[in-house]
């Protein structure tokens, strides 16, 4: 018995978060990774340390097909796990209900073979649960775990499965950018509604580019159309855990704070010294972001920060 882990794929390529959830899963037993996508992604998954075997299957994009595929493989495993990404959130509860299992999701710490910690109430409380069921269905927050090393050469087995889905995929509308992935980025620069416009976000992006950082936004900024929806950080957006988070013009609504609690260091740039985010920041600079950002980006360029 062991863990069957659903690989996290992004546009057919293996996502960096797969190595992180593999590290989380490896605490529970030997890990077989299921890669429903291109062969190259399966080959890359085989290099992740701690992986016993890669199961390569035809591409499946929709929840019902993926849940059926996982269910057909479930018998040989006592843990079936995935990332707490939009894919994992879509698929794993469906799988769990099919198998009559109560899942444990958004796990941020593994405290034993069946003891897990998960945030509730937007991260304002942490719940420790024991799962005495024979089989476990789990999702891990990738940002809460360090990635497993590479250098492995696990065998790749091709599954001959037909995946059927009642739903039909029509189109992906991807946000085109060369910015690092938010949920696994080491540095994130985030902008709030005070940034004022999509044009204003260019200043945030410029700082991000200098630092090799991912760019995030608050729900209010996304709702106002200043930033695309996949930049949203918070309870209902992405959960981030960078080493450094620079929050620009963000007051710190509860639902945004929920998404950044894993950040090691927080820097706040804000006009309001009383803003909740300034209160929890490790370093704060009080002032007008439109003056500060260009200067800060220029200073950092000049000092030649290397990433």
């Amino acid at each position, binding site marked *: 018995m062991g863990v069957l882990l659903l690989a996290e794929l992004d546009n057919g390529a293996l996502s960096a978060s797969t190595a992180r959830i593999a590290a989380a899963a490896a605490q529970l037993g030997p890990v077989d990774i299921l890669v429903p996508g291109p062969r190259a992604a399966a080959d890359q998954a085989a290099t992740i340390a701690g992986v016993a075997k890669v199961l390569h299957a035809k591409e499946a994009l929709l929840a019902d097909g993926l849940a059926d595929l996982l269910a057909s493989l479930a018998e040989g495993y006592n843990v079936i796990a995935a990332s707490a990404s939009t894919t994992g959130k879509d698929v794993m*509860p469906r799988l769990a209900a099919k198998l009559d299992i109560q*899942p444990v999701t958004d796990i941020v710490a593994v405290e034993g073979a069946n003891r897990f910690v998960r945030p509730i109430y937007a991260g304002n409380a942490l719940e*420790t649960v024991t799962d*005495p069921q024979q089989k476990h269905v789990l999702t891990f927050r990738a940002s809460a775990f360090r*990635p497993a090393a590479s250098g492995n050469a696990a065998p790749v087995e091709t599954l001959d499965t037909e995946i059927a889905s009642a739903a039909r995929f029509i189109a992906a509308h991807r946000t085109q950018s060369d910015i690092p992935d938010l949920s696994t980025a080491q540095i994130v620069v985030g902008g709030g509604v005070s940034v004022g416009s999509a044009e204003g976000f260019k200043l945030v992006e410029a700082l991000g580019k200098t630092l090799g950082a991912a760019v995030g936004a608050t729900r209010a900024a996304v709702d106002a159309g200043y930033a695309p929806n996949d930049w949203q950080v918070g309870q209902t957006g992405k959960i981030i855990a960078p080493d450094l988070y620079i929050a620009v013009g963000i007051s710190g609504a509860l639902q945004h704070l929920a998404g950044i609690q894993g950040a090691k260091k927080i820097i706040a*740039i804000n006009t309001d010294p009383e803003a909740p985010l300034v209160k*929890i920041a490790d370093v704060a600079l009080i002032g007008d972001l439109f003056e500060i950002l260009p200067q800060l980006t220029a200073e950092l360029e000049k000092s030649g920060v290397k990433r």
Partner: protein
Amino acid sequence: MKILVAVKRVVDHNVRIRVRPDGSGVETNGVRMSMNPFCKHAVEAAVQLAEAGAADEIVIVSIGPKQSNDVILTALAMGAHRGILVEADQPLETLVIAKLLAKVVEEEQPDLVLLGKQAVDDDSNHVGQMLAALTNRPQATFASEIKLDGHALEVTREVDSGRETIALPLPAIVTADLRLNTPRNAALPMVMKARSKPLAVRPVAEFGVDLSPRLTVEKVSPPPERAAGVTVNSVAELAAIIATDVNEMEAI
């Protein structure tokens, strides 16, 4: 078309919650409660479909204590037609909730079930997907746009890489994300009218579902506190701090 919308009564999302000192959970006594925000978007989507002539009946279901009547009334005031309260006083796990909703779906035979994508108390994000599995219906989670095209839906979903559009045949399950719509605040006459709409109260035992929890909650604890830091006075100072941090960062 008949639409069933499931709604949950939760601690109001504007309340700063407090973890009980004994670690037994989050304090909900004397705390303002309201309809889970995502459920409001689901109700609004149903009402908009009815206003567009695509739906002729909207049934609201909530599972919880007697006070959950309040959130059903809110949904009725927004424009839904009748309500069902499955009255249960004990906390129920998401799998149990999905099984109870599956029974309601069996009785009501709705063409579309709308739910919020997650409740802001336990943040589980399970029930819609589970209900889809138990009723063997296709699902579209995290919807930011729903279009009805004859007997099929075209749903745009908010996903990690941006958005994607999928088509699904009815009957189907859809869960609502925040940008699906702007929920209305019901005007006073609608609130008054809601009180005269049918609302059936059904004891949870009637449904023959095993309610016992599968998981054991060991404890609930507050997250580690962040202490206030320092305020710097110049951009140069801040740039120096950032440069030092970045240069010391461990490469991964």
